[in-house]
């Protein structure tokens, strides 16, 4: 990494960072509403975002800064296996198209702000509501911390040392999220996404041109993997096919269970907005695939890296003029702000609606909800910052991995109720507990690896633990529901369903 400060890159970086900061504070007036008077305004931007705003917002918070750093890093380190991100972010959209408009309608009709609101409304179970809310909160915290790690990588690349820059950036983010709510990341997402598109489209044309074309890029990567051996390679080694596919499927089912993606869904103005976005959002997947290829370009450029995470910043510093590297780093750092803001808002909405309102103050006013959420968003961000400053980075990575597994276990409670009223809350709660318990224990006992093996008929199958836990979760929920339905045939708890 740079051992001196890259002044040109830093100047360009600071210019764009200042620009989005001003935008963040002005966002409160954009499509203006009474931001502090109602949680729908602060936490969902007034539920009025149309197709393009939603496209930028969901695109901006689903494809995070950490993705831009970590996906090429994984591809650089292991090759084809890292590309599971591509099938994952393709098959997620047929799912979004089929399910999310129905979820939006339920939320819109009843004024729900969070997934746990929907679950409570469907099953009238405080226990299941709390389970979904806590899972969302716990899964989101390390995810915000990862955005800081992504930002830290590019700040370090410009030669800045110490923790002050990242603390300063995060305080600015916290303040304008506090004052503008979801409008801030929605507005900033325009700038961030256009910058990322420019950076990536230029990189995927110019870099192979400098390195001798895509054929040369792939062959350089192949040479590196042949030398490295193990399970690395340009295509998957035999034992990796099932892990690749199950990781893609499990991640796709988990993606829209997270508070930050659901916030984007709930903030859109119509079910049709979401349908159109399911058609248009794959453009970001194309971008992600191209970003992943930067990992191979790192091999072709013969970078010497201290950590695979440095592959993207190093590539830009080696092959581009300083001002363009600064532009690229600004794009990545701003790319961290959008998801971090939406994640903290999603978490704040959950805490306000499903912990504070349910347990502390059931008679809270709309303005009261907005102010509790605003303060919670600050607490959540300070928590994520403390995470990065005081705990080892690996801890955040491990927790984020477990978070993906945990959030996937809320899938039956949230999604099944949209299609059938057969399941009972008790069954879903037990399934959730068993899925989380078995999944966490399995990942932990395998040394924080997300894969588990199952011997079946003399063959050993290795698969993504999260998906295995989800199947177990559904089986337990179904069996428990059968038993509960025998004991209590009348569902006395149900309230009118939308």
């Amino acid at each position, binding site marked *: 990494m740079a051992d001196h400060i890259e002044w040109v890159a830093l100047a360009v970086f600071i210019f764009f960072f200042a620009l989005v900061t001003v935008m963040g504070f002005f966002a409160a007036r954009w499509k203006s509403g009474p931001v502090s008077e109602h949680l729908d305004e602060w936490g969902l931007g007034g539920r009025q975002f149309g197709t393009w705003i939603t496209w930028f917002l969901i695109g901006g918070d689903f494809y995070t800064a950490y993705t831009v750093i970590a996906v090429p890093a994984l591809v650089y380190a292991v090759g*084809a296996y890292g*590309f599971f991100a*591509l*099938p994952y972010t*393709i*098959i997620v*959209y*047929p799912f979004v*198209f*089929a399910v999310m408009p129905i979820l939006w*309608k339920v939320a819109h009709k009843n004024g729900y702000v969070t997934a746990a609101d929907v679950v409570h409304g469907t099953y009238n179970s405080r226990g299941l509501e709390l389970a979904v809310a806590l899972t969302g909160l716990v899964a989101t915290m390390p995810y915000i911390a990862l955005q800081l790690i992504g930002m830290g990588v590019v700040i370090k690349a410009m030669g800045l040392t110490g923790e002050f820059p990242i603390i300063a950036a995060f305080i600015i983010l916290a303040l304008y999220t506090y004052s503008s709510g979801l409008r801030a990341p929605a507005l900033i997402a325009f700038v961030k996404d256009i910058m990322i598109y420019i950076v990536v489209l230029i990189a995927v044309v110019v870099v*192979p041109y400098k390195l001798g*074309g*895509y*054929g*040369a*890029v*792939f062959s350089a990567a192949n040479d590196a993997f042949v030398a490295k051996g193990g399970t690395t390679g*340009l*295509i*998957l080694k035999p034992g990796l*096919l*099932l892990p*690749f*596919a199950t990781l*893609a*499927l499990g991640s796709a089912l988990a993606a829209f269970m997270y508070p930050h993606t659901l916030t984007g869904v709930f903030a859109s103005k*119509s*079910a*049709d907005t979401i*349908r*159109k976005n*399911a*058609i*248009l959002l*794959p453009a970001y*997947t*194309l971008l992600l*695939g191209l970003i992943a*290829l930067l990992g191979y370009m790192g091999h072709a450029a013969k970078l010497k890296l201290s950590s695979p995470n440095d592959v993207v910043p190093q590539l830009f510093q080696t092959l581009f003029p300083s001002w363009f590297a600064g532009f690229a780093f600004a794009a990545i750092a701003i790319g961290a702000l959008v998801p971090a803001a939406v994640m903290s808002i999603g978490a704040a909405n959950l805490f306000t609606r499903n912990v504070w309102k349910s347990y502390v103050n059931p008679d809270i006013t709309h303005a009261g909800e907005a102010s509790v959420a605003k303060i919670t968003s600050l607490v959540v961000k300070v928590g994520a910052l403390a995470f990065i400053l005081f705990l080892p980075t690996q801890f955040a990575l491990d927790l984020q991995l477990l978070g993906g597994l945990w959030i996937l276990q809320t899938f039956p409670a949230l999604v099944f109720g949209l299609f059938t009223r057969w399941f009972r809350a008790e069954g879903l709660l037990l399934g959730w507990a068993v899925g989380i318990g078995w999944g966490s224990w399995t990942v932990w006992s395998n040394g924080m690896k997300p894969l588990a093996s199952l011997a079946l008929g003399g063959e050993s199958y290795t698969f993504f633990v999260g998906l295995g836990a989800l199947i177990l979760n559904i089986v337990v929920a179904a069996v428990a529901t059968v038993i509960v339905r025998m004991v209590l045939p009348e569902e006395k708890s149900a309230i009118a369903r939308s």
Partner: protein
Amino acid sequence: MWMLLLVPFVGLLWVPFYNFLEPSLFGFPFFYWYQFAWVPITSILIWLVYRSQPHDEAE
């Protein structure tokens, strides 16, 4: 029409379909350009289902 939404799952999750280097296209091994190709194909499939359903903006 809704069955079209399952096609990308089959095409991408059955990895033995595409875990090859050849034939390559513009320097991209088959494994890569096959997955890239599914991005526009999936958009088109979803659009076909969207077009076949009644919908209105206010909904």
